[in-house]
């Protein structure tokens, strides 16, 4: 059963057709929502609720539209709202607590020993912590771009904001991430050899 058939069957009241859509899109949706809300239970609830709503309101779905972007858009927006409702006030002083080892040395070593593995883990944690310090809209922009790998036009549709706003949000989010993770930046000597995290593809 393909996606179009599943939607048609769901419209006809066959609930089993929803299973195909759940199995195809739920994992990606939950993961995207999790990166935005930062809480697994909340992310699961956001996506499950979207599927329940889909079943209830399937007659309102325009079958001529592609399902995947429509569904991810609703998940991203629901996750942003959930993150705004549950947003914690994070002190900017927390930024100082980030551990900031040198990324160059980390990248230079191919087979990390136990110490390097620890550094990797710390950088991983710092990146996720920096992500938490963004506003929900900035975080959503980053997740759409770097996790869901949407282009500017798709992000315009997903976030339901203008193209200029997409660019601005991405720009401000990147800028803030760069500032929070500045000690991981390549040294000036290496700057020309590796692309930093910036405008790129647009």
């Amino acid at each position: 059963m393909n996606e179009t058939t599943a939607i048609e069957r769901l419209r006809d009241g066959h609930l089993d057709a929803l299973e195909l859509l759940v199995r195809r899109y739920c994992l990606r949706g939950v993961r995207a929502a999790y990166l935005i809300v930062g809480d697994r239970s909340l992310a699961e609830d956001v996506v499950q609720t979207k599927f329940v709503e889909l079943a209830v309101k399937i007659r309102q779905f325009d079958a001529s539209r592609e399902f995947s972007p429509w569904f991810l858009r609703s998940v991203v927006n629901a996750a942003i709202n959930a993150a705004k409702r549950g947003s914690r006030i994070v002190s900017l002083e927390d930024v100082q607590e980030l551990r900031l080892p040198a990324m160059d040395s980390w990248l230079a070593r191919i087979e990390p020993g136990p110490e390097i593995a620890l550094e990797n883990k710390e950088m991983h944690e710092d990146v996720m912590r920096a992500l938490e310090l963004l506003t929900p809209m900035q975080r959503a922009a980053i997740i759409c771009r770097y996790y869901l790998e949407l282009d500017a036009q798709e992000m315009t549709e997903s976030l339901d904001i203008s193209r200029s706003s997409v660019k601005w949000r991405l720009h401000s989010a990147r800028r803030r991430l760069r500032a929070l993770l500045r000690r991981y930046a390549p040294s000036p000597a290496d700057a020309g050899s590796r692309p930093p995290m910036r405008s790129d593809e647009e």
Partner: protein
Amino acid sequence: VEQQTFKKILQMHVETAIPDDHDPWPIIHGRLMPGHQTAAGAEERVPLSRNRKTVKRLSTLALCISLLLLVFLAWTPTGRALARSVIRFFQTTDQNSYPVPAEFASSASQLAEPSTPVPTSVAAIVSSAGEMECDPDRGQGTLMCEIRLLEDQLGFPIQVLPLQAAELVVEKLDPDPNSQSLTIYYTNPYSLSVSLRQGLGDFPPDDTFDRVPPDGVRAVRIAGSPGEIVRGMFVQWAGEDQMEWWPSAPILRLRWSDGQRWYEMGRFGTPEFSPVLDEAELIWMAEHLELGSSMADSSEDAGSPTTAQLAESQAGIDVKIPVLVPDGFHFRYAQVPDEAGRVMLVYSTHADPGPRGFMVINETREGSDARWFGTAKVTHVTVGQTDASYVAGYNRGGESPYSPAELLAWSADGLDFEILHFTTAEDGYNMRLRPEGVVAVAESLR
């Protein structure tokens, strides 16, 4: 952090948190099951659980009560009086429009001939930005220095916005000795202006133009403190003799008090950027004010002035520069917001960014977008053979360092162009270019 590393970290993080074998189907199926047994239609087939039914009934009841309250507040004199008494920080008015006050009407009656654009050459002009020494005797210096001087004058520690969060650059510090308050004006590379005003005690009284209709005010919480937010402003459209409330104006004002000090944040920008820095983000910034004296001096950070040629090479756009600009205006700098494919050529009448401004924007976009103008009255004109939209309006209220006056937008050669011309309230109409003047500037782009 490199892009690929960043993507990899995101991937690893979610794959660890939400493993591939995550199977939500039984839960979703369970949530849908109760209604699946009996109903025929999809909506009937998925009834709400008893708890959700109760919640829905309560929500409906709350909605009905809210609607009744709104009707009471909006349409009965007692209700309106009650609503006004609840609004604490903004002063309200029942009028959505009123005649332009005499003092301004008189300036309008002295309508001068529009300024004549004069030839200019910007290509050789370089940035005039330079560091200022901290000179307490002259009351000017670096931003840090000025903040410390003002703290001594005003008698309270000055709070500033978290600059990093919204790429803001301090443009101007404007102390008011009468109200013992300070307004800090910020700007960012997206022609967005933000202001933060603060003072001790109670809010100073609003003048007529700052007042808002009661239904334009909404209560919010700022880190637990009561606050109010307003979208919209009174404007006088060109050719009109009435001030009219413009609810969709690209202006947000947020007022709150922490018990000892009052604050007002304003966000002003071209209509295009209305969605940028929305209410939630404005509130987030309000909740994250920082002490000015501990702030790093970032006044030379984002949006650093550049020459037009440098802007051209940075933006990758064949920048077009006007041969004609309004009389008295000089090229000041070009801004290239990262990634926006946009170059802004900024002109002013003074060496410093003053209350008068003139801006020519070159941008790679996908066709001009008349929606930017919202409910503004658009005049259709032509630039050469190209259709263009012209808007003129006068903002008498708000705290913007600029009063948006005239805007012309059109598309040509795969680029979008905008010309914005700002003047001050004191200038009245005297600095106005009118459509023919702005079109002359537009047609002189080379």
